[in-house]
């Protein structure tokens, strides 16, 4: 089974987010970058398959500049076999999806994993676009996935519930919590990652469809108003007067 995991390189979840003075981009000073947590669920799921069978090959791909390589190395340390980097600064979801689709289209992947969304863009756009561009069947928001030969049983999150689906490989699956447990790379993995191939691919010219003008920080809360623990009635009456409850 040939698996591709799409990896987005994002600020660590604990990062305090600030932007460059011109608002054009993230202020990267002091920011640690990691594998997007949802993509790590996909990679962990791929590793489960690999541990059960000798016949599983895992590739990871990221659209990004050279700064994303440590993130790809981490994916190799977790256990991917090879990594690919499409060498360009991503402009929007459409260009990312198009670049990955163009690269992946003749490579006969059985399974493509993405995260449900990237925690920087939060668009949740690349998976559905990629599935459409590649003509792959698409299971979104997967919380469980069992593969038996070519047959797949998946659970996906829906509003107020779960849906159970049957499908056939090849398939594109966007992952969320539940599908697998995150893994911590061990020393052997980290050593092995150094000698695994990381191939840089020249990016085709793709026009973006959405342009980011600027970022700014959201308006913060003005400050917390405290009420005494002896008398929470006061809080209730304030919430009620303001029409909140």
């Amino acid at each position, binding site marked *: 089974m040939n698996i591709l995991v799409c990896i987005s390189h994002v600020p660590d979840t*604990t990062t305090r987010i600030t932007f460059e003075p011109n608002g054009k981009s993230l202020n990267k000073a002091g920011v640690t970058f990691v594998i997007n947590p949802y993509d790590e669920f996909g990679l962990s799921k791929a590793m489960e398959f690999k541990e059960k069978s000798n016949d599983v090959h895992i590739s990871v791909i990221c659209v990004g500049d050279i700064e994303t390589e440590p993130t790809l190395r981490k994916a190799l340390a977790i256990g991917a076999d090879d990594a690919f980097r499409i060498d360009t600064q991503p402009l929007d*979801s459409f260009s990312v999806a198009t670049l990955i689709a163009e690269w992946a289209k003749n490579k006969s992947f059985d399974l493509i994993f993405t995260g449900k969304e990237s925690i920087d863009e*939060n668009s949740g756009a690349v998976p559905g676009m990629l599935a459409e561009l590649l003509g792959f069947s698409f299971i979104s928001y997967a919380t469980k996935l069992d593969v038996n030969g070519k047959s797949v049983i998946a659970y996906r999150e829906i*509003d107020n519930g779960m849906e159970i689906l049957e499908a056939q490989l090849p398939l594109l699956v966007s992952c969320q919590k539940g599908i697998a447990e995150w893994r911590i790379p061990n020393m052997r993995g980290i050593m092995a990652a150094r000698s695994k191939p990381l191939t840089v691919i020249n990016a085709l010219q793709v026009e973006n*469809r*959405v342009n980011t003008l600027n970022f700014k920080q959201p308006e913060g809360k003005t400050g917390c*108003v405290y009420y005494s623990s002896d008398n929470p009635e006061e809080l209730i009456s304030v919430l009620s007067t303001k029409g909140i409850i």
Partner: protein
Amino acid sequence: MSVLVYAELDSGRFKKATLEACSYGVALATMRNSDVAAIVIGECHESELLQIVECGISKVFRVLDSHLETFTTTKYISVIQSIVRENGFNTLITSQSYNSKSITPGLSIRLKSAFISGVVGLPRIEDGKEIYQRMAFSGKGVEEVIALLSDIVISVKTNSFGVNKNKTGELNVIPFNFSLSDDVNDIVPKEIIKTSSTISLTDAEKVVSGGRGLKGPENWGMIEELAGLLGAATACSKPVADVEWRPHHEHVGQTGIQISPDLYIAIGISGAIQHLAGVNSSKVIVVINKDSEAPFFKSADYGIVGDAFEVVPKLINAVKKMKNSL
């Protein structure tokens, strides 16, 4: 620049998020001085459709086809694509329900459109261009974007715009016949398991949430009671779901569900940044924590420093009293 809203049915009903998308579509069309219509797929009572009319949409494309009784991305993408194309709409608007979020990116490819996900509010106009705002960096940033194509697909962030049901009009239903062959899809929906009959977390206007400070699952009775009184959904922090004190679908945060209710009450939750990422766009945040230094107070509107086991029963009594006095 005419606008089509995908008015998604959920078991024959329109959820608030759908009516919000309708209200958004109407406001956008008004701003542009253009037409607006909706597409409704599946069976529902006529009175449901009147809700769309109250939001300001009279023209409704109605698709009834046995193939479409169950949702799959490919089928729904194909139907909506046909309606958009055959009627020359150039803006498609949806909510951010799980099913809508699953079709919008693919639709944007089919429709050769720009896709803007999770807009908050109407665009502002600058040099004749619509500039949309959306949240990025898990609520830690606001992004302004423009579409570079004239055709766009937009999803509206839940609870960011509100429902405006104050319009009147004549319902004008246009049946849309759509022939879909059986073999276009190899994904077969087998079963839907609804998690509970209570209020869905993503749709809830009020949420009462508990963390590790509640010590154990046996102490959730008071959380549920408070939620019940307020008409709120219940939620929890990640560790609480991880140790299975509460079901996984209640877990909110960076890796759980992202919500933006009008009121979020956090009880015994420290307010870790990953938790905040899922709740920081709530309109009003109330924090109850025995530690006055708990980080959550920095993001709160109202706070009570105190032991949840003392404070929550008092809150419950206060709400009961308030209700009785109404």
